């Protein structure tokens, strides 16, 4: 910013806009009195009371005020900055005022609405809040938004149905994709599955997808490869990949984690031996190779799930059991099939219907009590049936254990490499289960498929496509524009003690050994101000929240 532009801001000319918010504010405190009071405050040259400041006419008033009165600071006393700051600051910018010279005072959510029936007190508090906001605004400085370039290329880790779907959707938007798969083939877990619940052949379905991937010109695939190292930040990551032909280095703008999960091997559970007592995956194999000879089959649900060690429900194993029970009944109608369960997790209309159909085909379902789980001995499964208050004993040729999907053993390594969190079970943890289900808290990194939580193949695919649109929303911009509310370190006074470095939760600070000072990466900085509060020499400061600015606000108490 040039000297002349800065000079314009030196002598504050503050405009204050007091909002009635209809009767939301004016109904509980005297806005006209607040406005009158604002006129008496230092540096205030213009005051206006509006019925609705956020309405079009209210915005025009602010913009007109800026022009007519040559305002170089604007304060709006109204609702919460959490909802309305962006609207007002961008309106200031439209009128030619740097948006960082805008300050908001919350006299609705934190005043008129919480002091109802105390009109005088609320009016007095609103005046004090305006006084504090005006004092802070006088010390505000213009800032320039931070811009950074974006590399239109994406790294997808994992070539199961989730990763392939993400890669395919991204490539379909003409974005370049690097797809890294650890094993020698694409397809993930579904390669071992027999028939999907939709009736499709699982292997064929992933092979079809893999075929499309391999002919897509925008996708560079690396099989039998692993990501070795990742550094950088959203828009500009440096990645190194170990491939059978040696190390490959590249640059990408975003990263997608689609590393899936594995099926628990039920060692030590229900007399598991891989012969008479098998896992669901082993049953899939038997069905695939048509070598099911058992005449009596018993499924035990929640084998190794929803217990003290693994509290979660794996969501998909009930559906798998019902699917396979029906397949057995279709192929071998005389085979007796019984399912022992705790709760049937058959969510959604399609699965609900499957359960009805299975009952119609003669599959029998019995509830068991987790406190008194079924006992498997020889060719016999016995359990306590609470409905009839009886011990029931079933003769069986094959016992199938419905085991949960569990995180891969190397999920933690990936999490550390990307600096993203996992949950208490070891699955990758999204930024917010409802609001940002496919994002990590770290900008530019996304997650889809079973690595996030056990998912069906349809869900994994949907998530993969969803991730592609999240990524596209970032990478189709010309450049990354970021709020200027970030920290700054003054190298003249920084003594290089690195106190700030260890406090920064976002690893945005690094030590420059040549200059012997700490430096901030503005793209990684999230503007928390921890470094500023820690720095013993007051060299680190948070723009827009500098100590002088805050102290001025507190000083006007």
């Amino acid at each position: 910013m040039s000297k002349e532009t800065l000079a314009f801001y030196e002598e504050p000319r503050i405009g204050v806009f007091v909002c009635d918010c209809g009767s939301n504010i004016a109904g509980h405190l005297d806005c006209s009195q607040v406005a009158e009071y604002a006129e008496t405050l230092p540096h205030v040259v213009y005051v206006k009371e509006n019925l609705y400041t956020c309405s079009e006419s209210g915005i025009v008033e602010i913009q007109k005020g800026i022009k007519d009165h040559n305002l170089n600071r604007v304060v709006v006393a109204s609702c919460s900055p959490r909802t309305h700051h962006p609207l007002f600051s961008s309106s200031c910018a439209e009128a030619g005022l740097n948006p960082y010279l805008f300050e908001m005072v919350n006299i609705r959510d934190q005043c008129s609405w919480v002091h109802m029936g105390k009109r005088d007190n609320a009016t007095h508090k609103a005046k004090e809040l305006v006084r504090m906001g005006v004092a802070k605004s006088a010390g505000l400085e213009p800032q320039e938004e931070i811009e950074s370039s974006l590399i239109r290329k994406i790294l997808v880790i994992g070539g199961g149905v989730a990763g392939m779907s993400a890669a395919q959707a991204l490539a379909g938007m003409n974005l370049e994709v690097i797809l890294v798969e650890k094993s020698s083939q694409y397809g993930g877990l579904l390669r071992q599955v027999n028939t999907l619940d939709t009736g499709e052949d699982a292997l064929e379905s992933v092979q079809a997808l893999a075929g499309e991937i391999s002919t897509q010109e925008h996708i560079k695939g690396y099989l039998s490869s692993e990501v070795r190292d990742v550094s950088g930040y959203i828009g500009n990551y440096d990645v190194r990949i170990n491939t059978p032909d040696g190390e490959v280095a590249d640059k990408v703008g975003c990263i997608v984690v689609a590393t899936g999960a594995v099926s628990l091997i039920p060692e030590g559970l229900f007399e598991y031996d891989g012969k008479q007592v098998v896992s669901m995956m082993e049953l899939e194999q038997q069905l695939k190779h048509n070598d099911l000879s058992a005449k009596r089959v018993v499924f035990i649900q929640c084998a190794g799930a929803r217990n003290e060690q693994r509290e979660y429900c794996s969501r998909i194993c009930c559906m798998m059991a019902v699917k396979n029970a029906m397949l057995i009944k279709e192929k071998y109608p005389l085979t007796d099939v019984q399912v022992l369960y705790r709760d049937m997790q058959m969510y959604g209309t399609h699965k609900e219907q499957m359960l009805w159909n299975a009952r119609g085909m003669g599959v029998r379902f019995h509830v068991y009590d987790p406190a008194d789980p079924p006992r498997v001995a020889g060719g016999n499964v016995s359990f306590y049936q609470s409905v009839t208050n009886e011990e029931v004993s079933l003769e069986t040729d094959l016992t199938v254990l419905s085991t949960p999907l569990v995180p891969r053993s190397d999920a933690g390594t990936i999490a550390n490499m990307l600096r993203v969190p996992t949950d208490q079970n070891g699955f990758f943890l999204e930024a917010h289960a409802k609001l940002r289900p496919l994002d990590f808290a770290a900008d530019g990194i996304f997650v889809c498929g079973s690595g996030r939580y056990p998912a069906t193949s349809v869900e994994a695919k949907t998530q993969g496509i969803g991730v592609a649109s999240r990524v596209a929303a970032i990478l189709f911009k010309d450049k990354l524009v970021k709020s200027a509310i970030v920290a700054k370190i003054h190298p003249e006074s920084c003594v290089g003690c690195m106190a700030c470095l260890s406090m920064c939760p976002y690893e945005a600070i690094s030590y420059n050994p040549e200059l012997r000072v700490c430096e901030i990466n503005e793209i990684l900085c999230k503007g928390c101000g921890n470094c500023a509060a820690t720095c013993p020499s007051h060299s680190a400061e948070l723009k827009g929240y500098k100590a002088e600015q805050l102290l001025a606000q507190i000083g006007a108490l």
Partner: protein
Amino acid sequence: MGQEFNPKIITFACNWCSYAAADLAGVSRVQYPPSMKIIRVMCSGGINPNYILKAFERGADGVLVSG
């Protein structure tokens, strides 16, 4: 009889949690004494001890740091 004691309370509230909670209190019309005022910060970890001292110096009876 002396006047009723109305403590002046200054709260430093984190933008992402406590400040949002204070907004929610407003939306829910939860009522509290007007002698309490909130100053928004971007993280409770960014509060310089000087801010707290300054608040006391300016006559606060209590300072709440919430984040």
